[in-house]
C-alpha cells in the first residue's frame, strides 16, 4: 500500500486483494494515515486491487465514518467492473464519490 499526502488530500493506493482476512491490516494503515495527516479529502485508489468482497464495503464505510468526524470527504477511484458492482449494491455512492477505472 502506497500513501501520498499533499496537505489537504490524502491518497491511498490499495494493493492486492480485499477480504475479511486482509482488510484488517489495510484498515489500520489507512486510519493511522488519517490520524496523522488529517486530510479534508481521502482518495482510495482501487487500481491495483485484483479481488474484493463485501469486506471492502466495510472498509469503505468504516473510513467514511472516521472521516466524517472531521468533516472530511471520501472519494473512490479506479474501480474495475466487479468492484464497482459491489459498491453499487451497497449504495456507497451516497457516501463517497465513485470514479470507475478506464
Amino acid at each position, binding site marked *: 500500500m502506497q500513501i501520498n499526502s499533499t496537505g489537504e488530500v490524502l491518497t491511498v493506493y490499495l494493493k492486492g486483494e480485499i477480504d475479511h482476512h486482509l482488510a484488517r491490516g489495510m484498515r489500520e494503515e489507512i486510519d493511522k494515515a488519517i490520524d496523522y495527516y488529517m486530510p479534508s479529502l481521502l482518495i482510495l485508489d482501487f487500481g491495483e486491487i485484483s479481488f474484493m468482497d*463485501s*469486506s471492502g464495503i466495510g472498509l469503505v464505510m468504516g473510513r467514511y465514518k472516521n472521516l466524517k468526524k472531521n468533516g472530511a470527504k471520501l472519494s473512490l477511484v479506479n474501480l474495475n467492473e466487479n468492484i464497482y458492482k459491489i459498491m453499487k449494491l451497497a449504495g456507497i455512492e451516497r457516501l463517497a464519490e465513485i470514479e470507475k477505472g478506464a
Partner: protein
Amino acid sequence: METNKFTLKIPSRSCNESFARVTVAAFATGLDPTLEEISDIKTSVSEAVTNCSVHAYPNSIGVIYISCEILKDNVLKIKVRDKGCGIADIEQARQPLFTTGGEERAGLGFAVMESMMDSVSVRSKMGKGTTVTMKKKINRKDDAR
C-alpha cells in the same frame, strides 16, 4: 453421465478465505466461464466462507466443508457447510445491512451472494451448524458467440 465434483475440508482460519475461493474458481474453469462469472463465484465463496470464520466459529477454529458439483445444463452447485453455532433467525441474517459482526462488517454477505448467484439457500440449526447452497448457471463463452 458421470458428473464432476470435489470436496474440501479446511480450518476456519481467515487466511483460508483466499484458498477456498481460488480453489472453487479453478474447479469452475472447467465450465468455460467468463471473467465476470469467475469473479462472481470467487466473491460469493469468499462471503460464505467468511461467514463461517466470523460467525459460525467466532471464538474457535472449526472445520469448513466446501463441496462443488457440476449439474446438468452447466450449472455449478457450491455448498459451504459448518458445524458452528447456527443462525437464530435466517430471515434476519439475510436482510441487507443486518450484521452481528461489529463496526467493520457491512452486513451484505448474503445480499452479495444473492446478487451474484442464481439461487442461494440457507439451512441452519442452532448449535449444529449452517449449510449454504448456491447455484449458478455458467453460460459457455463459446455459445455466446
